[in-house]
């Protein structure tokens, strides 16, 4: 038994961290958001930032006492940081305690959860130097006054408890020493019987004989059960401190330490979130007992008793179940379940808590609004969001459904839904690559009748059930015209379009049926994000990644997931396509987003609606962010929502809240910008035609001009119908 205890290696669930916030001069972060980020890490504002985990504000100047921090690639001791802000410009300078300029510095990464076994123990192990001196004193005062002198059991306390229990006819008092509690927690079930009590006493005596009091106290602090969070059992004071207060154990004050000690007696009965009055009463009892025994001054106890409980509203960790789900799946490719739940790994991810909050809020806000508009008796609308940084391929936020704290069906990873019109950019990309199309090429939006096997025919329609006739490519894409797109897709050939999707990262072979051209391809939101990330990253595909690095318990880097890019389309073709996706936002199905976006922000995107309005999609990007939003019902019932009505407002609210930069890649040398008349695709100039848009076309391409726009007479246009006829005749070449 002693051997077993000596060989004690607590099973240590992997700890998962968010991306650290990089601070540097020029970062457009004002005082309020910076304070918010510090408070997210549970830094406290104080008059003197003299203890790690505190900061002080004087005008546009912040003094921060940074905690020691462990990053994937570096361990940093506690240090002081002075931040000077320059109003709207954000951070002006960063200085060290010695006054030297710091070019760039990370705040410590936020702990976002851990990977613990199903129905298992979660804990953060602390060493004695991380334990506030008050904690062992408080534990002894309340649970075991003679801990320092007894031999593992306290016969007098046991007799007293037995007397009370006998009189009551049931077991009411413990009388167990800390050592006995440790034995019970570690070796035995918690059923209270007299024979078990006897075994417990014998084992406690044995432990006491073999270990120092300091070892036993440290074991107790790391072992004891202090709360339950769904399937997750909160063990040890290190995790309990994060779970209840969101900060490290070493930073707890007297009132907070006393609350944790109060909880020991009954983590469920004294749950400070569910039964705050009980918890408060017992915490104050703990404070009184400590004062009575001279552990603390009576005045300090009285002052602490006036403090509120101070627990965070939600348990820290397990905030982001959808994101953790993605992390877990990534790691399961390389690690056994046991390594993840027991080996004490540290896992550094790309989650950006600010972006995650923005995405969660936007989804909930818009779905609540839509539910009010589209009353349905059954379940409410559901949704999912994936947010990435396109260039690095970092997945910075995942929302798996409306109930963000619920660790259940993760729609972002598991909802396989028809991608609908999200497929269209890939069809037009294929068209541009063929060299036979550009943004101004006129195509026919005309009835389609494809003969399938047997007597069946495929006769798709536009969403409006109208037929638009000859239209330029830019309009066909911006307004998501089905018939025109099917015509182009059939001209290119299904295998060509499928190959483009595969190149951009579609995991499966799409079925080569004509309906594929209208998005009869099932994807999950995260797969849609992978596909669109290539469009947002200028034709470079990078595997989306949530995990940056895995570090062993003793600090060795075990695995890195470095950035990898593959060019899957030329910059020239990508620029032309992305320019058209910008027009989706200005002229097409993305128009209504403008109200929620900063007026000068340039963004590009595409709506998607699957058949009978079962799925409402929007995928789009700025210079720094890609967001994919899906909205629908879990039972696959029609929602009556197009991509523009359902997913787009969510998308726009996220993009509007992120403070993102404009889409603004350099124009490739062999591509030119051209102003054309939107309905006809004719080259035009302001003043000589209405509804002028700017498209990108290959340099040297001939584009018919609008009559009277001052271009040479020979460029005068033939009619739209003639141009469409030319395209139709060119089909089949």
């Amino acid at each position, binding site marked *: 038994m002693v051997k077993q205890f000596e060989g004690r290696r607590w099973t240590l669930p992997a700890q998962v961290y968010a991306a650290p916030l990089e601070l540097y001069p020029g970062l457009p972060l004002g005082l309020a958001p910076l304070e918010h980020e510090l408070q997210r890490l549970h830094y406290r504002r104080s008059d003197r930032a003299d203890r790690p985990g505190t900061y002080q504000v004087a005008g546009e100047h912040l003094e921060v006492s940074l905690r020691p921090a462990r990053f994937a690639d570096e361990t940093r001791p506690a240090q002081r940081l002075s931040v000077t802000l320059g109003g709207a410009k954000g951070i002006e300078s960063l200085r060290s305690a010695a006054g030297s300029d710091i*070019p*760039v510095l990370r705040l410590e990464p936020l702990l976002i959860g851990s990977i613990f076994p199903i129905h298992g123990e979660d804990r953060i192990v602390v060493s004695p130097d991380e334990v506030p001196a008050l904690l062992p004193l408080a534990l002894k005062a309340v649970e075991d006054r003679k801990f320092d002198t007894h031999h593992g059991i306290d016969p007098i306390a046991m007799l007293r408890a037995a007397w009370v229990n006998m009189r009551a006819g049931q077991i009411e008092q413990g009388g167990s020493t800390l050592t006995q509690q440790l034995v019970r927690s570690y070796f035995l079930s918690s059923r209270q019987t007299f024979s078990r009590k006897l075994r417990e006493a014998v084992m406690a005596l044995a432990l006491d004989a073999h270990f120092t009091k300091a070892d036993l106290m440290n074991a107790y602090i790391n072992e004891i059960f202090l709360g339950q969070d769904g399937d997750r059992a909160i063990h040890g004071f290190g995790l309990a401190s994060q779970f209840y207060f969101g900060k490290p154990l070493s930073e707890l004050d007297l009132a907070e330490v006393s609350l944790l000690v109060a909880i020991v007696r009954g983590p469920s009965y004294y749950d400070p979130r569910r039964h705050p009055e009980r918890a408060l009463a017992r915490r104050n009892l703990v404070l009184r007992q400590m004062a009575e025994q001279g552990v603390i001054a009576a005045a300090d106890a009285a002052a602490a008793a006036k403090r509120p409980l101070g627990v965070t509203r939600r348990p820290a960790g397990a905030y982001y179940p959808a994101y953790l789900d993605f992390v877990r799946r990534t790691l399961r490719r390389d690690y056994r379940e046991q390594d993840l739940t027991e080996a004490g790994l540290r896992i550094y991810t790309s989650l950006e808590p600010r972006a995650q909050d923005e995405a969660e809020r936007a989804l909930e806000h818009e779905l609540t609004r839509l539910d009010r508009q589209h009353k349905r008796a059954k379940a409410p609308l559901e949704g999912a969001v994936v947010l990435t940084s396109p*260039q690095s391929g970092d997945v910075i936020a995942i929302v798996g459904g409306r109930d963000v704290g619920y660790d259940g069906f993760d729609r972002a990873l598991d909802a396989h839904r028809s991608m609908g019109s999200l497929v269209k950019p890939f069809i037009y990309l294929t068209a541009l690559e063929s060299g036979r199309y550009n943004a101004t090429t006129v195509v026919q939006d005309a009835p389609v009748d494809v003969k399938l096997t047997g007597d069946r025919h495929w006769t798709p329609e536009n969403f409006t059930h109208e037929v638009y006739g000859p239209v330029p490519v830019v309009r066909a894409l911006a307004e998501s015209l089905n018939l025109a797109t099917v015509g182009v897709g059939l001209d290119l050939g299904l295998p060509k379009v499928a190959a483009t999707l595969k190149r951009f990262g579609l995991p499966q072979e799409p079925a080569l049926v004509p309906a594929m051209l209208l998005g009869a391809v099932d994807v999950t939101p995260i797969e849609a994000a992978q596909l669109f990330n290539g469009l947002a990253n200028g034709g470079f595909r990078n595997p989306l990644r949530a995990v940056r690095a895995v570090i062993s318990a003793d600090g060795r880097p075990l695995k890195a997931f470095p950035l990898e890019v593959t060019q899957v389309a030329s910059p020239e073709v990508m620029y032309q396509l992305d320019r058209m996706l910008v027009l989706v936002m200005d002229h097409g199905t993305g128009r209504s987003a403008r109200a929620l976006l900063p007026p000068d922000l340039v963004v590009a995107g595409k709506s998607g609606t699957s058949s009978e309005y079962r799925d409402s999609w929007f995928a789009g990007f700025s210079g720094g962010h890609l967001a994919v939003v899906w909205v629908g019902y879990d039972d696959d019932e029609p929602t009556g929502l197009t991509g523009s009505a359902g997913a787009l407002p969510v998308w726009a609210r996220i993009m509007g809240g992120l403070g993102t930069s404009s889409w603004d890649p350099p124009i490739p040398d062999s591509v030119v910008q051209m102003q054309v008349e939107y309905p006809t695709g004719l080259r035009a100039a302001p003043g000589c035609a209405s509804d002028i848009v700017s498209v990108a076309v290959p340099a*040297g391409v001939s584009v018919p001009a609008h009559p009277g726009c001052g271009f040479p007479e020979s460029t005068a246009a033939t009619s739209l119908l003639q141009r469409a006829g030319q395209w139709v005749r060119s089909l089949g070449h």
Partner: protein
Amino acid sequence: MRIGTLPAALAAAALLSACTLFRAPPPQSPAPGTPGGTPAGTAQPAQPAPPTPSALTPVPPAQPSTPTPPKQFHLGPAASALVTQAHQQAASGDTVQATATLERALRIEPDNPLVWIELGRVRLAENNPAQADAMARKALSLASGDAAAQSSAWRLIADSLRARGNNGGAAEADRRAASLAPR
């Protein structure tokens, strides 16, 4: 290239960065595309076929509005400090750390071709010429108007081709690099 030759690679990278910072770009810019003789089996981008206006009314071609104005990319102070740190990490043989540090720089300046070139140099030092090539092409796609940065990217492409034994392609890439920013 083996790990042992890393300091040389970094010296080259540093030199190229220095060129980028101090040399005025010549006015001409290259036609995009890939150098001849790239080995089969490496992922190559689909280059757009020359446009064929086919049966459209014959009209004079659209004139390029104005050529991309010359510009020079610089690293901001934060990215610059991280690149310096990455050089030190790589020089001591720790390419994993160097990569992590350069990715921090990339998150701060994701559209700066100089950061992509640095990342590609470390990939090359890790004997991963395919990724070095891809990073160089990403840099090239961002470097419009900056002949010095384009030249650095072409040199990285040349080195990655050489590392894969394609000396012909490497010579062609070097020629492009030299025409942009003669050493």
